[in-house]
């Protein structure tokens, strides 16, 4: 019986979205995350069980592989696609309230920058770890972060920058966020950043990869 959740974990990790998807080649023709999620729910597993014991677990495994260099951007994107295919079945339960997300994270690439692939990966991983993600896209100004914070006052803010000329914009945005909402936690990331830079601009957390971010977020929930 547990078998199907294990299977689902594996197809999420390996990035098999549905039966028709050609990737990965060795799983051709087999059920993907889409079919297995539907089946698991039909078999009577609760949406929460499916989410926690299969989807979150699968994403965690790919996140670990990514951190260790065993997997890279393409594998991660495929896993995220598989997760999305599974989430279609779970989402209705978020709305009805029968499945609880851990909290809300507002994500955006900082003003002046349109590099969004890293930000997207982090957003997918955070979503895959059981959070609601509000993705503001690229070129995100303080005003846009603020508007989202007004809608989700308890949300955590995550910012990304890939240019040394735009990462400096994080400073102003962080300061303004802290001014209007001192309790809001700000996470930052992106290739040119460092822990030093994070400390310097008064942000709360930096991680070079998505795994670090999900672990940090989970720790916040536990300590709360």
């Amino acid at each position, binding site marked *: 019986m547990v078998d199907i959740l294990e299977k689902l974990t594996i197809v999420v990790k390996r990035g098999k979205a549905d039966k028709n998807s050609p990737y990965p080649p060795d799983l051709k023709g087999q059920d993907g995350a889409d079919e297995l999620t539907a089946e698991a729910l039909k078999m009577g597993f609760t949406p929460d069980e499916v989410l926690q014991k299969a989807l979150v677990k699968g994403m965690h495994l790919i996140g670990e592989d990514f951190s260790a260099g065993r997997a890279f951007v393409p594998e991660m994107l495929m896993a995220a696609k598989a997760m999305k295919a599974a989430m279609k079945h779970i989402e209705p339960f978020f709305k009805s309230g029968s499945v609880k997300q851990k909290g809300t994270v507002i994500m955006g690439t900082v003003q*002046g920058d*349109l590099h969004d692939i890293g930000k997207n990966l982090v957003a997918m991983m955070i979503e895959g770890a059981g959070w609601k993600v509000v993705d503001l896209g690229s070129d995100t100004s303080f005003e846009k972060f603020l508007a989202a914070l007004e809608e989700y006052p308890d949300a955590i803010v995550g910012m990304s920058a890939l240019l040394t000329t735009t990462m400096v914009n994080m400073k102003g945005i962080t300061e303004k966020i802290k001014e209007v909402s001192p309790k809001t936690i700000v996470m930052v990331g992106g290739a040119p950043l460092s822990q030093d830079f994070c400390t310097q601009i008064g942000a709360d957390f930096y991680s070079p990869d998505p795994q670090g971010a999900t672990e940090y977020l989970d720790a916040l929930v536990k300590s709360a």
Partner: protein
Amino acid sequence: MKDHFTVHLEPLGKKVEVPEGTPLKDVLFSYGVEFPCGGKGICGGCRVKVLKGDVSFDERHRSLLEKLNLDFSWRLACQSYVTGDVTLEIGQFDTFILADSSPFLFKPQEGYGIAFDLGTTTMVTQLVNLKTGKVIGVETAVNPQAQHGADVISRIEYAVLQDGQATLTRLVREKFATMIHRLIRKAGGIAPEKIVVVGNTVMHHLFCGRDLTPMASYPFETPEGGACHFTPEELGLKTDDHTDIEFLPVLGSFVGSDILAGILATGMAESKDPLILVDLGTNGEIVVGNRDRILCASTAAGPAFEGTNIHMGMRATTGAISSVTRSEEAIRVHIIGNEKARGICGSGLIDAIAVFLETGKIDIGGRIKGESGRIDLTPEVFLTQKDIRELQLAKGAVASGIQILRETLGFAPEDIRNVYVSGAFGSFINLENTRRIGLLKYPADKIIKMGNTALLGAKMSLFENGDKIRDILQKTIHLSLETNPDFQDIFAENMIF
């Protein structure tokens, strides 16, 4: 008896036919090889390695090598004459800068002209006799702005965030004047009719003194990318007043007039068949098109091809593994200068990955098999997992850019007649391996290493009245890859080997 011989220049892959007895100095000069001691045979700066055949070699030459502590596989170019077919390696110069010696068609004119390629890293200029088309002088230098950052973004940072714009402009103009003065002096004080300068958008703005602020953040559009004309006086040149100095216009965003010159050099705007021009540098500019329409973009590949951000990466200088091959089970590396390996340069990295994909040590996702997470090439030099990831980002970006531009124009890969590869690094790569790793997905016989297309195009434009440049500008559209919603998926696909 043959009275002409072939000089084969590695790793450029260039062949030059010259009459017997030609001084090697004359052959190498136009490739930017410098002769620091002026050809006296005492500094060793012009040393080349004989790979096959030989050049003249006498007792005097032998004793000069001994004094310089060089073994007898070396020759001093300044002491050598062509006496037979020969293959030479010229990649070992620390200051090796790619000039250009390609033949081209031109309309003979009176006087002299100067072509100037202002690169982010290096500056190279040639003095051309407009009557004969012959290059009669070359000067090369490292861009003095480099002390304020290696790539264009760090120059922008220095100019905009640290108020250094005026400094960068002064530095580059001073160096420019020094180089032009030397060219002219060595040629006996001639007065050039015109000087054509090309460079990327950041170099254009810094040379011309235009505000770089718009280039610091999205949408990276500058209103001041047009052609800039100067009088010699404005640039501190002590030359005839009539000399017309022009910095050619940029094509848009991060695609500059070096690429405009490259388009001119390839003849793309007149070609019926579609062509591709790729610059395998940090900006990774790409141009696709034919006489009907041309698209250009920059893919921001990053510096992995230049050996930067690679754990044991280095430039293509002495001690760098520059190629990796496999015969049967043995892996062979070639080290520039045949010395102990100190690191690996871009061409070696591409070869190594291609070879280990073949052996199965690296899988198509880029993962190194086994637990060690590294691959040893020599006792000193190894590749890390992260090196492979860096290369995947760089080659994925370039391959995606090519694909997007080509598809936007509605061309299939088979429609492309030729792929021209420009830039210093492009001249050194093994084309089969480039294909194997999915950087340029075109048959090797369609790919042409073109060397410094910016300098060649600038030289060609010395003979033009401006019509061809206007034609290119009119046909060429800059595409912003960052607004393409499919980029991420295409990029991910192209990262796979």
